[in-house]
């Protein structure tokens, strides 16, 4: 009876490093859990967190609805000078990113620190730009 569905556990833990919010996703991000995740994202974005790194190291599965959550917020985040960046994709999820074309609209990095750093570069660039 328990075999009816695969486990639909999903969890997101948020930490902050250098004013960048790191979202550690775990489990299955599907049509159901994406509703819960959307709430989390909504709170973050409404709370003024625009620099987001999504760590997918422990994410087992992501469905199109899961991707939809990022789509829903990316415009607003970018409008406010932030971005959503992804790191630490498993081979399988990386393949899905590739197939769907998400790599063309999102920045995907190999490690969390790289992702955080990439935000700093933007800041430096901006500073330089202003000086000019």
């Amino acid at each position, binding site marked *: 009876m328990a*075999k009816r569905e695969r486990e639909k556990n999903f969890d997101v833990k948020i930490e902050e490093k250098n004013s960048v919010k790191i979202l550690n996703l775990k489990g299955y991000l599907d049509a159901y859990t994406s509703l819960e995740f959307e709430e989390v994202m909504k709170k973050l974005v409404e709370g003024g967190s625009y620099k987001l790194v999504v760590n997918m190291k422990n994410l087992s599965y992501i469905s199109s*609805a899961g991707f939809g959550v990022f*789509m829903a917020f990316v415009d607003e985040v970018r409008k406010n000078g932030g971005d959503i960046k992804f790191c630490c994709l498993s081979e399988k999820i990386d393949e899905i990113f590739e197939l*769907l074309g*998400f790599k063309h*609209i999102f920045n995907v990095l190999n490690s969390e620190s790289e992702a955080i750093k990439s935000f700093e570069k933007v800041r430096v660039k901006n500073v330089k730009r202003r000086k000019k």
Partner: protein
Amino acid sequence: MKDKDSKTFSFGQVLLALGFAFILLAVTLIKKIFPFSAFEIASDILSSALLVTLILIVQPFAQKFEKNPVDGIKFISVFLFSLVVISFAFKNLINIQRVGELTTLTSYVDIISANFYNLIYAFLLSIVFSIFLKVFFYERGKEANLKFVVTFSYFAIFELLRRLFEASSLLSLLSGIQIILFIWASFRIPWVINLPKKDKYKVLLFSFLSVSFSFLLQSPFITGNAVEGMRYYSALFFSFTHFYCQPFLIIYFFFVFGSTVFHLPTGEIYERRVTELSTLQNIGKLVARVLDIKDFSETSVKIAMEITNSKSAWVEVRFSNSAQIYGRFGIGEDEMLRVMGQISHIREKFGREYFKESYHIEDLESKIVLVAPLVAHDKVLGLLYLMRDGKSYNQDEINLALAFADQIAIGIENSRLIQESIEKERLAREFELARQMQEKLLPKSLPVSEKFEISALSIPAFEVGGDYYDFVIHNNGNISLIAADVSGKGVSAAFYMAEIKGIFQTLAKIHPKPVDFLAKMNDTILGHIDKKFFITLVYAYFDLQRNVVHIARAGHLPPVLVKGGTLKFLKLPGASVGLMPTHSFRKLLKTLKFKLEKDDLLIFYSDGIIEAVNELNEEFGYERLKKVIVSSSDRHSNEIVNTIYREVINYQGEIQQVDDITIVAVKWKK
């Protein structure tokens, strides 16, 4: 007595009783002339028969007191009083004379009045005795039967012995034992304990009166010559009344009195229990009826507050991540929040696994707060707060509070479950609607041509995943094929499928080439659908004149091409439709164009195949798909599609299909 329904006295029995009484009259009159002991025995037998008949006659009346000992005692005392009055009245109506050792009645008139007296006495006594038996046996089991039989048998044997031997010292010892037997028989009076207070006072009064009247009936001062009349009438009857009935009544009612006095304080508790029970029952009913959490928790909080003698009360219901206050009584919001703040450490502890307290009492300055968790299915759904000044809560009140907390918890749980089932029902209907929509959107028939065979299969998951395939037959006979997947599930997915169908059927005719079509489609869709949604698809344009196919992939899973016996996944570049502006989208797209030859096989499929999992949670994956296609590629396209589907279903085993499964196979014939 066998006919329990007969409420009236049986006429036959009355006649029989009168017959006995008449014969007794005759016997007593003869006894006056011939004082033989044989007549004594005859009158004893006759009086016994009379008494038994009378007892049978009054049974229907006594029956009324079967389950009503309080009224029973009342009537006993009333009839005992009448006995006292009658005895007192006949005291002077019967004259006696002593002849040597023997006491007899003076005249025949005395004998007749003694007969009257005894008949009335026997009648009243039979009523008293019958009711007494009902009271005596009330709520008692077989032990009472046994005790009664023992006391009565002892009386009978004792009477027999008394006739045979006239040793007085032995007699007094034996009558002492009779008293002990009465005490033994009267020892347990269970019905007194549960009486309401009012009834207990009644029982006190009437048992006291019954004891008093029985004493009066024993006293020569009241009965006087009447007793002699009875003794003359029948010595056995005299013994029965004076040595059996009255002592038994005195002792029994003495015990009733004592037991009532003893249990008087429990009356209050009992009454409260009854109110509590009926209140809880009402709450139970309320819980079953009212599905609105707010409504019934307010009602139950109010009752809980009243019944636990609290001054204020409220309930905090915890939902997934917020708490809601319901039914705040006797306290302002500010103060309530202040109190909750003061005991926040306790509030947090409830619900933690290590926290084993079933309730908590906190002493805040002058106020006592009782916190009871609302527990259902081992989960703490919230907390019930009861508060009052000064006096702490006793165990009784705590138990009550916990009972109410349980009821509220059950109510919350029920309401939640019902909401959930409504939601489930709604979803099930939504999915059903989506399935119907999807079914209608898929093509009714597939194109037929001598150049190729085409087969398709689409099995929606319960939740409908948004898989879609379709064809457009152009005017020149060329064919456009689309295999798409809309993100999301249910009706919204079906809705977007409908939109794509419209776009595909119109745009493909104007822009048959893949890149043109996809760019136009992206243009049409971007900004017009919810940001969250995007569409993955493969578009293939079959040029039947040239035997050429143009394929482009927009985010969808790479189609499979089997050509010359080798299998290839066509991983063409391209992003999903609806993700990015058309100029960027178009740049990414690349059309693959190649000549089709005999036995070339193209397979389009959805992620429902690749992501299908087995019981070990392993995905079907590309490798298995590859294997099954290779093994079946030489068959008819229809068989290929079915083989793939069967393979996936077998692989899933008992696992439910989570996503739609769509397979479209095109096999070139020429």
